[in-house]
């Protein structure tokens, strides 16, 4: 099947923002190559594309953070140019960026109003007025905290609310959201959707970036597709099917069915008994078998990552025993974990995963140096061999293996991190939100790869907040809530309702009452 024809744009609406022939090159990498993007008032435009397609780059150009090498941006038909972020803000463009970009040391109100705080007659910041305005804004988006709270005391989801409040604090005409739901829980996502609807009704133009197709079809009116930095097509959501959109995006059809997990489950490999931490989690007991994919579900903030990091030796548990192949192992550091065949692919890729500044191949071989080196001395040829092998297995997109990993798109960085752990040939691999922020094509590849690993006898722990992924991939699921295990569910018992019920602490529907 060929991509569906681009539907004509309805003549009754003129675009509020119109980008045309925009190009941007980073040292050697052509991030954008003559792309076009139109945003209409009162409509949500979804920008879709694989990792590295240039979505975030477009956002940064539109908000004045980067300057394009060529092309024009028009607002209401008049060409504009943004030399700095303030220019874009003045033009009424505001954004919630992919990474939360806020200030831990400032309070909520200051985070919302930094750069455009209300002033007193003497030109000083009017704190009282600022807090009044912030309180009103927070109430509007249903944020459950005060404007005086220091930002560092907020959880990741609440920080996102602050970012949203900040975007709303300027009376913007264009609101950009770059993967705004990646860190939000179910309930908060619903609230966000409601907010988007409000903004729409106010006639604002919204640019929405997401890798989640259900979401796109839920809230977007229009779509624009980029592939490898080039414009592929745009149109109305109503005129296109999910399959066709995927095909436009990836350039081929992608099987969204989860791979059949017909792998054999073997003997017990890992047993965790009574792991506890003074403040983060308690009573964690479970076992993991050879060739098994064990899902860990929970709402964001349930403490799954904290536990996994303790299992990996980053933090120290206060209690608990860990057996690997039946033998008690004391894991005091990641090095201990690795030598016992347990590896962890962290959630926070930029901070904990990739080592930006080191070339791709060095990132990949870092935990395997013992294997590629001799008597502690490096052997570059061996390293490149290993890196080449795994780059190919994971279909890495990069210019060269000695390229700085920081120049890769988020998704490709994730591949490097996964590759680095697979190269150690572990027994147990813990994947913490392995497909967060990964495009649909790569996601399928990661899923297929997970199934393949399990089939080869590797035991996989998959932490995920995505219900379809959990249900589709897991042989067994442990649900965590508030730092404890809330339930352990067999594959046959997995339904979205049971998962959400256990994760949110709602008692079974027959019992009726909610906690």
């Amino acid at each position, binding site marked *: 099947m060929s991509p569906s024809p681009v539907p004509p744009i309805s003549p009754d609406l003129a675009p509020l923002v119109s980008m045309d022939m925009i190009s941007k090159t980073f040292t050697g990498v052509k991030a954008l190559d003559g792309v076009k993007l139109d945003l209409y008032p009162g409509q949500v435009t979804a920008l879709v594309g694989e990792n590295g397609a240039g979505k975030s780059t477009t956002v940064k150009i539109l908000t004045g953070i980067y300057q394009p090498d060529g092309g024009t941006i028009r607002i209401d038909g008049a060409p504009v140019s943004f030399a700095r972020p303030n220019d874009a803000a003045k033009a009424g463009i505001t954004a919630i960026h992919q990474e939360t970009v806020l200030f831990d040391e400032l309070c909520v109100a200051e985070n919302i109003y930094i750069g455009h705080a209300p002033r007193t007659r003497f030109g000083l910041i009017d704190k009282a007025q600022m807090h009044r305005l912030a309180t009103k804004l927070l109430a509007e988006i249903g944020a459950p905290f005060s404007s005086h709270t220091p930002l560092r005391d907020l959880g990741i989801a609440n920080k996102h609310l602050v970012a949203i409040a900040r975007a709303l604090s300027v009376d913007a005409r264009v609101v950009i959201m770059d993967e705004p739901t990646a860190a939000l829980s179910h309930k908060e996502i619903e609230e966000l959707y409601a907010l988007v609807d409000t903004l729409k009704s106010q006639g604002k133009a919204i640019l929405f970036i997401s890798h989640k197709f259900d979401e796109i079809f839920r809230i977007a009116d229009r779509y624009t597709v980029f592939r490898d930095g080039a414009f592929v097509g745009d149109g109305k959501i109503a005129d296109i099917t999910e399959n066709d959109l995927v095909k436009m995006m990836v350039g*081929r059809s992608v*099987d969204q069915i989860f791979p059949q997990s017909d792998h054999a489950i073997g003997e017990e490999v890992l047993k965790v008994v009574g792991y506890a931490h003074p403040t983060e989690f308690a009573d964690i007991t479970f076992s993991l078998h050879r060739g098994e994919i064990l899902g860990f579900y929970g709402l964001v903030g349930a403490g799954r990552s904290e536990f996994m990091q303790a299992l990996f030796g980053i933090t120290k548990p206060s209690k608990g025993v860990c057996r690997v192949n039946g033998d008690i192992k004391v894991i005091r550091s990641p090095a201990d974990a690795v030598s016992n065949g347990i590896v962890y692919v962290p959630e926070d890729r930029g901070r904990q995963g990739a*080592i930006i500044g080191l070339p791709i191949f060095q990132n990949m071989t*870092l935990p395997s140096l013992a294997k590629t080196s001799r008597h502690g001395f490096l052997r570059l040829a061996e390293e490149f061999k290993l890196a080449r092998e795994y780059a190919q297995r994971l279909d890495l997109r990069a210019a*060269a293996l000695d390229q700085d990993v920081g120049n890769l798109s988020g998704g490709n960085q994730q591949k490097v991190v996964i590759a680095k752990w697979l190269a150690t040939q572990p027994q147990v691999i813990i994947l913490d939100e392995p497909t967060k922020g990964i495009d649909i094509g790569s996601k399928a590849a990661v899923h297929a790869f997970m199934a393949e690993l399990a089939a080869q006898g590797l035991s996989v722990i998959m932490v995920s907040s995505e219900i379809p992924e959990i249900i589709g991939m897991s042989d067994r699921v442990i649900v965590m809530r508030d730092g404890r295990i809330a339930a352990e569910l067999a594959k046959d018992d997995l339904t979205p309702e049971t998962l959400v019920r256990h994760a949110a602490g709602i008692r079974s529907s027959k019992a009726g009452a909610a906690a």
Partner: protein
Amino acid sequence: MTDAIQTRHIPDHQTSRAARIFKSWESLLLAVAIAIFVINSFATPYFLNPWNLSDATFNFTEKAMIAFAMALLIISGEIDLSVASIIALASTAMGLALQYGAGTPELVLIGLTVGVLCGAFNGFFVTVLGLPSIVVTIGTMSLFRGISFIILGDDAFRGYPASFAWFGQGYIYWVFTVEMALFVIIAIIYGVLLHKTNFGRAVYAIGNNPTAALFSGIRVQRVKFILFVLTGLMSGIAAICLTSRLGSTRPSIATGMELEVVTMVVLGGVSILGGSGTIPGVVIAAFVMGLVTFGLGLLNVPGIVMSIFIGLLLIGVIALPRLWAMAARGRRA
């Protein structure tokens, strides 16, 4: 499912080896060093004399020994400003031992031990208590030298044995001094350690992203601790050389040397922010600094004026390529 994906070939290198070497910091620095050498040869008739050049090496050998260890420390994202004070304390300890009749072997052992202990002390504060190294070593900078002052007061230790003079005043062969030999050996050891071993790779990884390095199974704190100890050890070796060269110990020995060491490291292309830098760069930087100060010294330029040159060099070698790049970009646009 996945076999539809066409695997792409990714080359190992972006650019050729020759291009990488040509564009490197070390090449730029080497050009500067050669230029200074040539200028010096023309500026003063005394420069191209083997004995004089040999004397000139004293201007940098001791500092460079510390600079190699400091380079690793800075690449790992830390810094040690207490090195000159470690020299003072190590030298004082040797002098104290001398009063109790220690011979040359014991003196050397004590100098090294005190260096290692001081390094471990810094390392403890940084890696175990998790304090920023720049702050810790500003504190120990006063503390270590302070202890020297407590022990020595306004006195001096003198009368080191003749055999001890070998380290700072001895010659291996013709004009080649013992210190030069030490310099070469230490440079090679650190070059291999940083560029050819797993340990060196870990240092780079830590310098670029300590959290991710930890998550990659590197024992970050242990590596940093070892680096502090190594820096202490090198300060101990420098203390032996300097004490031997001066033939006496005062608490004010080596005052201000820490900044010269840091300057040397940075001039050598080591990023002060951590994560990059090479030992050959530091070696060349040592020669550049040595040649500049010696050349200007021959012209009887006061030390403070030399330091203007060093300061300009430090900023200039970083600034000029960037200005150049900016100008080039401006012309293209």
